[in-house]
């Protein structure tokens, strides 16, 4: 029952009188990055494959949804599934080319693929808006176009994503597939010797993760109303996709939720500091430091520190 209390608090936020749009928007950002972090956690946390290119799937989810809406009037409810399909196709090509090798090659390849998409998105200006990015045509409050002037509805959409993705992660962790992924993560050779089809397991985990990222990308696009090459394919975004799981605890279902909420608090605080002290890029510095601290001193994340010795 305990998990229901925070959910109820978040769900009640839009109705409370003292909660302004700033708090609501920050809540939505947290929920979106919890969902994105949960998706990355599948391939990296449970599967042990370091994808530095999950921005590709976020970007494809955003761009495909946005382009279909702007050019053809396809509502995001349908458009986002096209984004998911495109992401799955890209992940299939990437995964089948690189996942047979050791993890390093996969990590290096994901960097290259996101940079390739970055250059393409900047170049094909007619389709993507180039460096300036792509802004959704704004129709005002509309359920059909999934648009709203007020962040309230997005809180509920984000909550749906958070609960759904948490539930998916729990199911995967409890399943044979999840066990196989963790076996591959811990020791590929031993897993193969025990009869796990290593390549297939890695590829399947990558596909699930890519599809989840693209789907959450649809929500990202509707909330932010715009996407540009840097926030889709840049390294800064790639790290924002990883931090929730890393801070909270790799490979756990609770990790990305705790970590995502903390990351948004951290990023709001640093943005406040950046405008106050006129130091652009302080958020990147803080992300770098957090990455180092977590990896060097708390590789199990907050969940690992808090729940030491308990079943996770």
């Amino acid at each position, binding site marked *: 029952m305990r998990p229901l209390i925070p959910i109820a608090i978040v769900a009640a936020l839009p109705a409370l009188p003292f909660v302004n749009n700033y708090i609501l928007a920050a809540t939505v950002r947290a929920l979106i990055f919890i969902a994105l972090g949960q998706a990355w956690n599948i391939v990296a946390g449970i599967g042990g494959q370091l994808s530095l290119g999950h921005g590709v799937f976020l970007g494809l989810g955003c761009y495909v949804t946005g382009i279909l809406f702007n050019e053809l009037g396809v509502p995001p409810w349908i458009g986002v599934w096209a984004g998911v399909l495109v992401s799955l196709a890209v992940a299939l090509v990437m995964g089948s*080319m690189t996942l047979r090798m050791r993890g*390093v*090659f996969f990590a290096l390849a994901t960097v*290259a693929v996101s940079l390739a998409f970055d250059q393409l998105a*900047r170049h094909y200006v007619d389709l993507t808006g180039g460096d300036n990015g792509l802004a959704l045509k704004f129709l005002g409050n509309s359920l059909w176009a999934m648009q709203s002037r007020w962040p309230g509805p997005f809180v509920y959409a984000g909550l749906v994503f958070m609960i759904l993705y948490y539930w998916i992660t729990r199911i995967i962790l409890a399943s044979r597939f999840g066990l196989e992924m963790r076996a591959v993560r811990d020791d590929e050779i031993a897993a193969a010797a025990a009869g796990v089809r290593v390549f297939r397991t890695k590829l399947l985990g990558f596909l699930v993760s890519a599809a989840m990222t693209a789907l959450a990308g649809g929500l990202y696009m509707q909330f932010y109303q715009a996407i540009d090459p840097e926030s889709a394919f840049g390294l800064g975004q790639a*790290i924002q996709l990883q931090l929730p799981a890393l801070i909270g605890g790799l490979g756990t279902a609770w990790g990305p939720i705790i970590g995502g909420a903390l990351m948004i608090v951290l990023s709001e605080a640093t943005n406040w500091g950046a405008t106050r002290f006129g*130091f652009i890029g302080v958020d*990147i510095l803080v992300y770098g*430091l957090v990455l180092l601290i977590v990896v060097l001193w708390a590789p199990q994340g907050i969940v690992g520190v808090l729940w030491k010795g308990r079943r996770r």
Partner: protein
Amino acid sequence: MSGIETALVPVGQALLSGVLVGGVYGLLSIGFSLAFGVMRIVNFAHGDLVMYGMYAGVVSATFGIDPLYAIPFSFLLMALLGAAQYQLVYRRFVGFATLQQLLAAIGLGLVLQMLAQVVFGADTRSAPSMFGGQYLLIGPLFVSAAQVMAFVVAVIATIAVEALLLGTHWGRTVRAVADDIEAAELVGLSSQFINITAFALACGLAGIAGTIMVTYYPTDPSKGLSLMPIAIIATTIGGLGSIRGSFLGGIFCGMVQQLTAMLWNSALQDVPLYVLLLFFIAYRPTGMFGFRTE
């Protein structure tokens, strides 16, 4: 000149510029490759050391000293910085290119990049050497003297590293540790000392690469990150861990880049490289020359 020659001049020009640019790509890749080959460390912060090497050139130019003279200091400074990095961060990851190690390197790179921004500001800076603005004519082709100089330095540095690894006692111990760290310790080698010196050498090479590069290529704090893809692709194509392979891989990358810029589009000059990387990983992970079988 006949028609066919006129058509070939731009191709020759692109290939020549590609080789010259590629030599420096090769130099910045061999350091990256060395750290991986010896210690299995994927140093995503390698590009940031190149960036600091570029700023070493900028600083010396502001004092009125030609950046070319700053090369030895740049090498020493980056080697020291590399040794410090190794002690603080990478020591615990030697031998396993784990997810944690890659993430630590990325975090370190971001911190180094932002420190550069605090110290040097976010503006683009350049530091032309005594060869700045001079061009040489070779038949119908012309090349920048600064790039020729950079290429020469890159070749010398690469040969020196190869000679160091193949011809000296220290080089033999490095190769022994790279082959089998436990066996090397059993015969009395200190892997700790060998690793830290090898890592310092790798970082010092990044410093040289940066300082010669800034004589013709302006820098800013994000340059380090933007050079990493080239290092990654050059080492994968040339063979991760192989010195001469990475150098040749760098030259290959430079040629592909310049040809793409000429034949297709300069804004998309790196896209074929990214595609090539995927194909190499899928079908020839030992690299073009197969110098390393792993």
